């Protein structure tokens, strides 16, 4: 069975770029447009192997989603932050909330593919 990866980003172009980079590895890819929808998708798919998460989004940002997921007991799923941000304080916050990786956009497709494979437990 394919591993599920939830992609949370308010830009559909950004989601498309991520899908283009990782779909070759056969994941079941689930899209969400912000943190609130990301939480709903995570609740609907408790067997998710990885969440790829943007930071700056309307309604609920990436750190808020990460924090809420943790408080709801869904923090066991690995989170990979994929964002334009590189501010050390934000990176440390994400790390403290249990994120497993941080990649600064624009990303190199092969590097994202490798990180997703490693974190989702699908490393080749």
């Amino acid at each position, binding site marked *: 069975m394919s591993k599920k990866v939830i992609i949370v980003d308010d830009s559909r*172009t950004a989601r498309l770029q991520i899908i283009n980079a990782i779909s070759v590895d056969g994941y079941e890819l689930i899209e969400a447009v912000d943190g609130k929808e990301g939480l709903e998708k995570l609740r609907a798919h408790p067997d998710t192997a990885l969440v790829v998460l943007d930071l700056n989004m309307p309604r609920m940002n990436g750190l808020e989603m990460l924090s809420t997921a943790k408080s709801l007991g869904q923090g066991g799923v690995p989170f990979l932050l994929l964002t334009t941000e590189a501010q050390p304080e934000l990176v440390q916050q994400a790390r403290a909330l249990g994120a497993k990786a941080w990649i*600064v956009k624009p*990303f190199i497709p092969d590097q994202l593919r490798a990180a997703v494979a490693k974190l989702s437990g699908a490393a080749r």
Partner: protein
Amino acid sequence: MDSSEWDKLNEIVVECSRALFAACGVHVDYAGVATKDDAPFDTTLAVIGYGGAHLRGSVLLSAPTEVLRATHPSGGAASDDDLLDWAGELSNLLLGRIKNAIRRYGLVIEMSTPLMFSGLHLRISSVRSSNHAAHRFSCGEAHKLALGELLLQVRFEANVEPGARLTATSEEPPAGSPRGEGDVILF
């Protein structure tokens, strides 16, 4: 912030713009600052705001549809809505680069989410108290052949608080922090 610091800030904006377009496969040549304050645009616009203790304002990206279509990840099959979304993502990527660059000069800002527009003869009006500069970029020779003479524009608007300085810091990011675009950090 004196005029030399403002010029330096704009150099950063220009360099970040050039690097962003290059990362998207578009070589651009800097074509100087637009002389008309409210030049009309027949293009797609994306604007994204920012704020910080010393600096707040917005970055506006204006790009012809042809350029957005040529650089869209779908490879030319993008709808008009897709191109609007792409313009917004480009403005987000651009401000992210600027944010990461000016942090090395002691200026910390937070970013908003982008807003996108398209239309004919759009005009821009500035807040009179703000500093602003509209930087123009022409697509490189290869793209001129394919797309004709096209201009991109990046308008940088800033309200600068008294006492704000643009001072290079030698401070390295803490261990385990990304240094910039493309960096991958596994915790």
